């Protein structure tokens, strides 16, 4: 045993043993969901064996641009982010909330459609994803009303977070205080990936139970130092948002000419809101069955970029893209502070990457709040 190991610290999992983590989780009753390559992007889907992980893949991201490249390394988590965080797994893009049956006398019987979902273990959750999850929790669970559909899934999850060893070109989580290192809690297990294996620690009693069943050995100080260095380099990000509260600044620039300029570029497609891990807008619709005796009440993701979003009888309040982009940006970065005591942006950069015309909110903010009115 080399002298810089600490025998009391059993926190190292060799790469060839990673399958044991999946096995132990499945044995504990969890369905494992982790990163995989699908349609040239990293997405979170069900996995059962290590071979499904995106080994060696890194993502190159830029405004309106995303490509994956195989680097040939053995790392599973060298990529940074794909188009989705945990949002679509907890707040489903479409789900039945309740159902109503109508009997022959016209009487109505309402029943909840929320089941008891199976526990899901999410593998490879980033620091920004945890911050976004905390925001969804504040929204769906910590207000006056609890959303039972979200809650039933949320209660069953097990989170295996991972520290980011690199940042994408679009990341700015360091400026928002949400990454790239996982700080604070919100996870059950936390991985830091090295070429040969993982430093793994627990953040909860559920995490402890899984950890003791893994074939761990002691890590070295050198390995910890390596993790630290990679985190420091991941902190060197090209983009940033001002770390100050933008609430007052943005809300005093509602007539800035840049909003008109945005109107000419933005397609109002809503991609940014779909990929944003904190956007929660949804619509409720009813879907009557063909037999005429039942009807389902469904919720579907919606976007403040649609005309229906601000419809009230007879007119649309946000009838142009200028008003819609302004609505989105001012809510996300300004009035979220009033509603959730922090900004709605965790710096993941997804809205920059997945915007078909490459609109970059950090650049828009710099112009709108910076007094540089070249728009």
């Amino acid at each position, binding site marked *: 045993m080399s002298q810089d190991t600490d025998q009391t610290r059993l926190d190292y999992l060799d790469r060839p043993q990673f399958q044991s983590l999946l096995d132990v989780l499945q044995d504990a009753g969890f369905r494992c969901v982790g990163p995989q390559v699908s349609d040239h992007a990293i997405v979170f889907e069900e996995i059962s064996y290590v071979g499904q992980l995106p080994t060696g893949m890194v993502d190159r991201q830029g405004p309106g641009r995303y490509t994956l490249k195989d680097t040939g390394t053995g790392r599973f988590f060298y990529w940074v982010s794909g188009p989705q965080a945990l949002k679509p797994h907890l707040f489903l893009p479409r789900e039945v*909330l*309740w159902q*109503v049956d*109508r009997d022959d006398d*016209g*009487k*109505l*019987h*309402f029943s*909840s459609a*929320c089941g008891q979902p199976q526990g899901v273990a999410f593998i490879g959750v980033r620091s920004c994803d945890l911050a976004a999850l905390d925001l969804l929790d504040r*929204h*769906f669970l910590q*207000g*006056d*009303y*609890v*959303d*039972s*559909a979200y809650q039933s899934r949320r209660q069953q999850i097990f989170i295996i977070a991972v520290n980011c060893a690199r940042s994408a070109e679009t990341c700015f989580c360091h400026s928002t205080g949400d990454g790239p290192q996982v700080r604070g809690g919100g996870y059950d297990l936390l991985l830091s990936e090295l070429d040969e294996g993982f430093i793994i620690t627990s953040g909860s009693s559920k995490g402890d139970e899984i950890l003791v069943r893994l074939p761990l050995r002691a890590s070295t100080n050198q390995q910890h130092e390596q993790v630290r260095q990679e985190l420091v380099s991941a902190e060197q990000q090209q983009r940033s948002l001002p770390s100050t509260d933008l609430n007052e600044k943005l*809300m005093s620039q*509602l007539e800035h000419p840049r909003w008109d300029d945005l109107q000419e570029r933005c397609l109002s497609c809503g991609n940014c809101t779909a990929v944003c891990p904190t956007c*929660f*807008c*949804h*619509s*409720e*619709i*009813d879907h*009557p069955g063909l037999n005429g005796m039942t*009807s389902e*009440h469904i*919720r579907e993701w*919606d976007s*403040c970029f649609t005309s*229906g*979003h*601000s*419809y*009230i*009888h*007879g007119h649309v*309040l*946000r*009838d142009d893209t*200028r*008003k819609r982009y*302004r*609505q989105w940006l001012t*809510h996300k970065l300004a*009035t979220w502070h*009033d*509603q959730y005591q922090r900004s709605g942006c965790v710096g993941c950069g997804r809205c920059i990457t997945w915007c078909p015309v490459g609109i970059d909110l950090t650049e828009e903010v710099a112009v709108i709040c910076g007094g540089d009115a070249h728009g």
Partner: protein
Amino acid sequence: MDNVGMPHEAEVVEKIIESKSIFTLRLRFTDPQVQASYRFLPGQFNMLYLYGAGEVPISVVSDPLDEHIFDHAIRAVGRITNALSRLEQGDRLGVRGPYGRGWPLQEMEANDLVLITGGLGCAPLVSVINYVMRRRELFNRFVIMQGVKHSDDLIWRSRYQEWQQQPDTQVYLAADQAGPGWPWTTGPISALFKQAEFDVARSKAMLCGPEGMMFVAIDELTRRGMPESDIWLSMERNMQCAVGHCGHCQYGPHFVCKQGPVFSYPEVRQLHWVAGF
């Protein structure tokens, strides 16, 4: 536990046709326990669910002390409200609520009340009129001002005449365009302010209607010296969930369904003059 967003079944106890497009549904929850525990304040609203069609937000207009029944005055304007207008006595629908914040009527006691409405009779304030008329002694002067586009749009004409007969009550109506036999003012709602008598230092104003009309009224009131914090208004936005989750009614720092629909003017002033929020 109950799913928060799930309606309870209610029954149409009576349907009253108020005008060509406006009708009142008097409702009761079919489960007596649900009915017994149902409490609301004027200004709050319910989500009414019509089988297979969907839900709409509608204010409660009856008196909060009526324990056996609650009323909704509805204007048929679109898909769901038109379908609701075809309901008859005994028909079933879904109701969940009440939601939002109502008018702070208890804090307004011992003041003059100034009600200003525009459009076709404004449900959130009809409930206030009913409430005050039953408790007339709790309030001082009662001023009701209503503006309509055309005199034919005024519903409940006889009720306004009745209200006008009540002690210490002033009713002023203005129609932008008036047909023959219109006994009240012809012109914009601002024309009514000259006639109204109230003590700005001891008054509370309640506004409801199109936002353009509310701007004019707020302007008149503040010019007359009423503090902004004594002005209250009810707002409308698209509403899908009514519990602050769907984001449709988000208005600056608020969700209208939760922090509203009734706001004090300083709470919403920041955005009130900006189109698109």
